[in-house]
Each structure stands twice: as C-alpha cells, then as structure tokens.
C-alpha cells in the first residue's frame, strides 16, 4: 500500500494498492490550508480503507515544484510518516503525476503541464509520453517562467514546424497518480527524483546594506 502526499498546489492525499489501484483519495484546492488538512486527510484515507499504518509500505512525496510555504508541509509530513513507520519515502516531481494521468487517460504526443507559481509566474514541465515502465518521460523542466516568456520560448521552439504540445494548465496534483508513479518507480528499481524540495526560487532576502541614519 502506497501513501501519496502532495502539497505543491492545494493538498492531495491518496492510498494506492500494490496493483496500482487508487483505494482512497482526498483533495482540497485551497492553497492556504495545507497544514490544517494534511493530517486529517492521511487519517481519512487510512480509515476509509481499513488500512493500519503498518500496512503502508512506502510514502510518495510530491517534491514540487511549488510555492514554498505550502510545498514544505507535505514533504515534512511524508518524511515524518515514513520515519515513524520505518518505510521508504519516494521523492517525485509533482508534475510527473499530471503527465502520468494524462497519458493513462489516452493522451498522446507531447504534453506541456503548468501549475501556478504565484507572483504571476508558472511552473512548467514538458513530456513526450510514457516509457516502457509506464513512467512519464520529462524532456524539459520543471522550470519557472512568466507566462509570456514561456509562450515566447514555445513559439521559438516550434518555429521549425514542430507540432505544438497539448497543454494542461493544472490547478492541482492528482495524488492518486503520484501513488501509482511511486509504485512504478519502485517496481522498475530506477532512480527517482532527488530528495529535495523544488522551490525553484531563492528565498526573498537581500544581504544587509550600510546602516541607515536615524537623525
């Protein structure tokens, strides 16, 4: 049983069994209530399926990209759950779950996914399909750009007549798909995403300048 947690957009929690079936899931699009709901969501997917914590075999953690304050909560929760249950945590790029879901639902060809990065910017990733293990092939991203700049880059890239990718501007990350991705990553025994939060932005700070006079 895989527990998937993602707070890179809103909050998504899901439980996926060893056959890749989504057994329970919870989602809240609100991007300001991650810390309030993450515990309750975990509790609910466990109780709804009659799953004891000891029956969870791995935790899938959506590492982003995502705006920092919310993103961290899901990662902290995923790591702590894994630590307390003595089970592995599988870090994943959150956008990969969107791609997996889109291709599983019959999508073909190139896919560009975006999520809101706030401050009038977008996080984006581009894919070409699923590989033989059923894992999305990400060929660009995750990256951060202003919408106009992303459009301009795409226009330039497609200038030679390449077909435009299908584009999904997502409001949330499907935690169920994240759990399925974790299962496929683990089954394939392949290297997965780095175990680090994908903020894609440095903290907002400037080193101190000279002291200002008060008089």
């Amino acid at each position, binding site marked *: 049983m895989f527990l998937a947690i993602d707070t890179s957009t809103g909050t998504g929690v899901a439980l996926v069994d060893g056959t890749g079936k989504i057994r329970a899931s919870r989602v809240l699009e609100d991007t300001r209530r991650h810390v309030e*709901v993450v*515990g309750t969501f975990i509790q609910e997917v466990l109780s709804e399926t009659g799953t004891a*914590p000891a029956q969870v075999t791995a935790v899938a953690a959506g590492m982003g990209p995502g705006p*920092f304050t919310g993103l*961290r909560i899901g990662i902290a929760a995923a790591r*702590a759950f894994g630590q307390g249950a003595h089970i592995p945590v599988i870090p994943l790029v959150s956008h990969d779950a969107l791609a997996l879901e889109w291709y599983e639902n019959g999508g073909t060809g190139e896919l560009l996914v975006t999520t809101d990065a706030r401050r009038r910017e977008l996080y984006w990733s581009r894919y070409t399909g699923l590989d033989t293990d059923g894992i999305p092939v990400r060929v660009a991203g995750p990256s951060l750009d202003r919408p106009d700049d992303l459009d301009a880059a795409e226009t330039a890239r497609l200038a030679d007549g390449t077909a435009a990718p299908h584009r999904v501007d997502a409001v949330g990350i499907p935690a169920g798909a994240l759990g399925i991705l974790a299962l496929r990553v683990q089954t394939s025994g392949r290297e997965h995403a780095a175990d680090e939060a994908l903020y894609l932005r440095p*903290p907002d700070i400037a080193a*101190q300048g000279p002291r200002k006079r008060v008089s």
Partner: protein
Amino acid sequence: MNRENPLVLGIESSCDETGIGIVRGTTLLSNTIASSMDEHARYGGVVPEVAARAHLEAMGPSIEAAMTEAGVTFEELDAIAVTSGPGLSGALMVGVGAAKALALSTGKPFYAVNHLVGHVGADILDTRGEPFDYPTIALLVSGGHTSLLLVRDLVGDVELLGETIDDAAGEAFDKVARILGLPYPGGPQIDRAAEGGNPAAIRFPRGLSLPKDMAAHRYDFSFSGLKTAVARWVERAEDAGEEVPIADVAASFREAVVDVLVTKAINACTDLGVPRLLLGGGVVANARLREVAAERAAAAGVALRIPPFSLCTDNGAMIAALAAQLIMAGKEPSSLGVAADSTLPVTEIQVAELTAGS
C-alpha cells in the same frame, strides 16, 4: 495511554531552531537542537524563509538523533507533541505537518501546545532542586518575544500580564550591535563589548517607564525608542568627530534593557504578591540580566529560578515536558485539524483539545 509517567517526543520549530526533545514524565532523555543561526548572520536577523527551509532539512535527522540519544523506539512513545504557536508561520508549519504525520504513522496521540507556556514548562526538567510552586511570574525574553506571564497553573491557568509593543529585547540587542558595527547575533557581542564599559555613562531611556506610560502599560515593554536613542547618540558622536566609546555605549544600552526588564518583572511579583520569578528565553544567556535579576529578586524577597541555558533557548524538550504535564493532568489529545497560529495567545496552553462530541 500511559498517564503516570508518559514518554513524549516534542517538536519545536517556531523560529530558527529545530528542537526535538524526549522526556519521560519530568525526566529529560534528550534535547536535540539544530540551529540555522549561521545562515541568518549576514542578513542581521532571522529570515523566515531561510529558517523554514532549514527546518525541513533538519527535521528528520534531528528526530533520529533524539531517538538514538534517548534510547527509545517510536513504539514505546506515549505521545507526539508540537509547538503550534506563537512563532513564524512558515517555520511552525513544518513542525506541525511533521508532528501530525508522525503521530499517525506511529499511532500515538497528538498534542499541540503553546510555545511560550513551553518555556515556563522547561523549569520542570531542571534537576537542581524542586520545581517551582505556583503561582509564579515568568519573564520570557528572546529574539522574538518579551513577555511577562502570571502562571497560576501550568496546565490550566496562564495569564499574559504584558509584552513588548514593538521590538523584542533580543531584537534590540541585534539592532544595537549593528549600530556599533558588531556582528549578529547581537546579544553575546554586546555583552563582550560592554566589558569594562560604564553602565552609567549614558542614560538611555527606559521604555514605558514614565508615570503616564505605567498607567496603561505597567507590564508592557518597548525597545524601539531605545534603539533609536542609541543610534542618535552614536551619530551625534560621529558627526562631532568623536571616537564612539563602544564599551560605554554597549554597557549603558544593556543596562537600560536589563533595568526595565527586571524592574517590571519584580513589580509584577510585588504587586500581585507572588514571591517567585522564573526567567526563560535566549536573552537569559546575558550575564548582566541574570546578575541584576538575582540582586533585585533577593532584595525584594522573591525566589529566582533560571533553568540551564539549553532549556532556556528554544527547544523541543520543553514542549515534550509541557505535553507530559497535560497528559498527567488528564487532558485529551488535540485535533489533527490544528493550524499553525503565529499569534497564539498564552491563555491557550493546549490547542484544540478533543472533548466528547468534538
């Protein structure tokens, strides 16, 4: 749940310290602290986003280190406790998110508690003599807080008598250190610079101590005006081409801070007839504060209590200790729906206790 002598793991992440503490009843088993202080130094103060990112990275290893030091397993724990406020929101959220998930994966009850009351609870772990009786006055002084509390009952009745209306005392030390060209954190730097200085050289203002202010703000503090007064004094000296007597300025500034802190705390003891004063918070590291507090407490017939420094700064042990007291007093766990509350009032000792029907 074992309510006699509960084994509790406490998580603290309200500022720049990731603290994990483990206690059994009133016995300290581990007090593990990872600090991001060095990362804030070049910015002259705690940068919330830098602190929050550091919490995320330090959380797992700190929990692991604390468990190893205490020599206990997750299965043996009776409860998981966490600071849910007050503090920096983004920083608090890392601890709260981790604590909830840890409670769920280990199947242990979850207790969300108040950071400031935790500082008072730290006293319980002090093995040098019996813990304080209640009521007691508590003066909590750090880079983020300057609060005077009346604690009638650690788990049931804590009242805020007063607090800073602008900068925290520790913040004032940081800002004045900067004025004097000293690095961050300012507390130890000012202490060092003040050595050999004359504390009576310059009469800096004592915030909210004039009769007109005492009417409305008897137990409140203000350090913003003091910081500006120091800056003006230094600028005047510089403009006049004089050499700034750093030792005298540091000693006089420190004296102003310590004087107002101790005066108001002792006032509270005398006014309210409470002959006990407990100090807590990182500024307790300041030797002059401890010295003046000891002198004036003795003169006023007030018993003074200062926990060891490792329990005065932010730490998870005090959070675990407070939760253990709540458990022993029969309090039920907190709701898993608890939010991080950056301005949690001290009257909320435990947040969102689950009661029948909730």
